[in-house]
């Protein structure tokens, strides 16, 4: 790791100000990605602005069917939230599948979506739930937030303060893990809401998380585990690497969609 200066912010304003006064600075949330990258000397921020001590960024509120999760809320808190489980158990299940207990107690939802790893779990939920990403300066629909591999709509220094979404009628998540990293080789989040069926896929798309419209249409016509089977998924749009070919991922998209529907009940 290269030398860096650590700052502990106690409010969102302070964090944003600190960040804007350090061009080469970075926000630090759970550090599960950023610290590891720094230790490998692949990132060298001059300053780290720690978000984990900002009370306003932590915690979960459920108001009717509206769920709001603070940006610095660790995965373990989401996994174990009874209030969220009561309205949208699928996102609790998803959070419980991230990494290992250490990672779940350190890693945060804000860090996860800001990082937008193409194999991360939360982006699929955000997209399928039509969530809103709330920042220090605006609200961004998930649809517009995830723009590519490790790329988001966030501007320089923009801070994710929370995410919010309306709990759907039904939702489910199924993930096929990479045998080594246990990130998603393919993860599919299905949601059935008043506005229709939304299906988002992580781990597979060559441009990051995406909506599987063919499966959405099939499930809109018939909400049944067998519906995704015949949906066409074009391997040309999918990643291919030593763990999974594009054809295999195309298969997994359908199979995980089926299992997500089963999980949704």
């Amino acid at each position, binding site marked *: 790791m290269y*030398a860096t200066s650590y700052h502990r912010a106690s409010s969102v304003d302070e964090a944003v100000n600190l960040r804007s006064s350090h061009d080469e600075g970075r926000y630090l949330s759970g550090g599960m990605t950023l610290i590891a990258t720094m230790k490998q000397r692949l990132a060298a921020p001059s300053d780290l602005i720690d978000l984990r001590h900002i009370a306003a960024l932590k915690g979960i509120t459920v108001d009717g069917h509206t769920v709001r999760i603070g940006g610095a809320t660790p995965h373990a808190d989401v996994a174990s939230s009874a209030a969220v489980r009561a309205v949208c158990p699928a996102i609790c299940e998803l959070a419980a599948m991230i990494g290992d207990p250490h990672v779940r107690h350190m890693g945060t939802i804000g860090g996860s979506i800001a990082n937008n790893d193409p194999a991360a779990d939360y982006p699929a939920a955000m997209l399928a739930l039509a969530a809103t990403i709330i920042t220090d300066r605006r609200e961004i629909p998930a649809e517009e937030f995830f723009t590519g591999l490790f790329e988001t709509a966030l501007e320089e220094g923009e801070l994710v303060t929370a995410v919010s979404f309306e709990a759907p009628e039904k939702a489910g998540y199924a993930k*096929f893990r990479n*045998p*080594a*990293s246990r990130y998603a080789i393919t993860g599919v989040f299905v949601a059935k809401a008043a506005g229709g069926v939304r299906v988002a896929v992580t781990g597979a798309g060559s441009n990051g998380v995406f909506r599987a419209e063919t499966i959405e249409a099939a499930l809109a016509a018939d909400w049944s585990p067998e519906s995704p089977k015949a949906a066409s998924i074009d391997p040309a749009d999918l990643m291919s690497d*030593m763990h999974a*070919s594009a054809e*295999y991922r195309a*298969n997994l998209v359908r199979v995980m969609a089926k299992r997500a529907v089963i999980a949704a009940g």
Partner: protein
Amino acid sequence: MGMEGIGARVARKEDKRFLTGKGRYTDDMVVPGMKFAAFVRSPHAHAKINGIDIEAARAMPGVIDVLEGRQLQADGIGNLICGWMIHSKDGTPMKMGAWRPLAIDIVRYVGDAVAIVVADSAGEARDAAEAVVVDYEELPAVTSAVAALQPGAPQIHPEAPGNLIFDWQIGDPAATDAAIAQAAHVTEIEILNNRLSPNPMEPRATLGIYDAAEDHFTCYTTSQNPHVARLVMSAFYNVAPENKLRVIAPDVGGGFGSKIYIYPEEIVCLWASKKTGVPVKWTSDRTEAFLTDAHGRDHVSKVKMAFDKDHRIIGLKVDTIANLGAYMSLFSSAVPTYLYATLLSGQYDIPAIHANVRTVYTTTVPVDAYRGAGRPEATYLLERTMEVAARELGLSPAELRRKNFIRSFPHQTPVIMNYDAGDYDASLNAALAAADWDGFAARRAEAESRGMKRGIGMSCYIEACGIAPSQAVGSLGAGVGLWESAEVRVNAVGTIEVLTGSHSHGQGHETTFAQLIADRLGVPIASVNIVHGDTDKVQMGMGTYGSRSGAVGMSAIVKALDKVEMKAKKIAAHLMEADESDIVIENGDVKVAGTDKSLPWFQVALAAYTAHNLPSGMEPGLKETAFYDPSNFTFPAGCYIAEVEIDPETGKTEIVQFVAADDFGNIINPLIVEGQVHGGLAQGIGQALLEEVRYDEQNGQLLTASYMDYAMPRADDLPSFTLSHQNTPCPGNPLGIKGCGEAGAIGSPPALINAITDAIGINHLHMPATPLKVWSALQDGQMRQAAE
């Protein structure tokens, strides 16, 4: 056996230290004035070095010095060597290219060391290492052994034209070809043994200390055999004469073979300590471990197995190409030859065997022994072939094996080994019963009703442990003898220190070796200390690998104990005015048999040291040394059965049961033996399902350089194992023990692949059987069916 003697399930003495984080590893060592090293490593798989500019690095904060290969060479430090000479079948010696501790003109794998930076902190050393500018001129890479043998492949060492190190054979080619020609059936198969990274929990580390006043070096290092390290560094690398070099391997957190060898870092840190005048410590990080620890396996083989009309094997022909990486590591030449091809008879009576082995340079990290070392490759090849043969012949796997088992001992195989004892039916029967093999059809039907594909497979392995009779290995090219030494030191109060040349890095010697003493003398294991891992304390030893510490190391302790007992009995006889032949040692007392005369053990020890009343002419003291040279290898054997369920939608394999029935001879501590088997099985299952080192074939970059891409087995990848032990005591050593450290890793891969191929109804599938591979195989199968 007593509460703590041989056969008792004693909890490990060393676990308190390890489990409470109180182990003392090389990286824990702190000495006054100590500084930190970082190595400048090649980012290319193959490149010419046109120049190294260290000036900027030298000027960096905290930097003490930056040293390069030319200086090392000028100081007379030698190249690394391979210590086992193999001759090609045309009689020429193996073609060893130069492995310089720091590369001078050419780098040959990603990670090859080019320079060392010594600085006040590890961070500053790394910063400066990045500032060293090396002018590389890239050369083409070649990562697979088969590709490296092709005409026009990049030439890696001038000494080895066409990258061929040796072309060796064993057995009788004519008799084998004749058997194949007259066979009723020949099974042919191509076998790949995937390349593995050893991944001990503790990465390698070393601390080199030069004492100018004494002109003396001390080397702390993560070694499985500190004495061999000292011998090699002294005799071949010219670091210092043996009396001026002390090597200490303190607690070592796992080795699996990768810490047998001397690596460049030990040598360079010792030399750098003298150059800079400060003690120099280097600790590998995980990425460096993936890049530079010797890998294992990496064979490609073609097999022909010939059967007569009664399904008896009449010949076996094997053609193997083994990848040895960029340089020949210390025992690399022995692994794909004498540790591999000599086991190709397996548990079977095979009249004719011929194996040809070509070893090859590639632009990858060196390959050497890794848990099992050659025997897993032999077992996998043989047991996969047996399985396919059984399917082709329409026999059950057990039946084909039974038809061919060796049943009379000693048995001379056509490939050097002389099996001394075994009962292969016993393990097979135990495994079949434990696995409820007969109930499998019903279980498969039930799985099918859930849409799952269930399969069952077995492997009957044999391996060779207790390496090895010195004269025999010497005649085969080994540069060292493979005996072991021990010293049993009884203190004046009767407590005991056992000094051993074996080295424990997870095996539990502090417990098992103490159990032997407890068994013989009746003293509690708490009064016995095992001393190992320091060349100043233990006179000489050959270390721990090849499951040799029990069969060879403990046999040396037995010999020393015999001498101690004999002397103690003489003293006791003298003190109790009895005949020496009437003295017995029981439960910590030295008694005159058949009488109530008795002395506590400590009084005999005390008498030896007060020397007030010893038999006339007897030397004071109670301390004896022994060297034990084994008369043969030992031959652990057993039968493993794996049962799997495959999800056809994803190709994912779940191991629903795993049965291991092992014959390790007599067992000292069943708890430790079970632990060794569990660990070995985890590694074998890792090889079969998960692990594979992958290089980019174009540019030679290591693709699996972290746990993001290299899949290690985790607890939830493994089932709860069902173990049992059969016992044909080893006739060759005093304790009747064979060795258990590697069996799990040797026997399990073929059992799994046999089970998986059974489940999906195809014969050929290469390890690791990842979900991707199994799913793809299922798709191919469906396409073939559709076409038919």
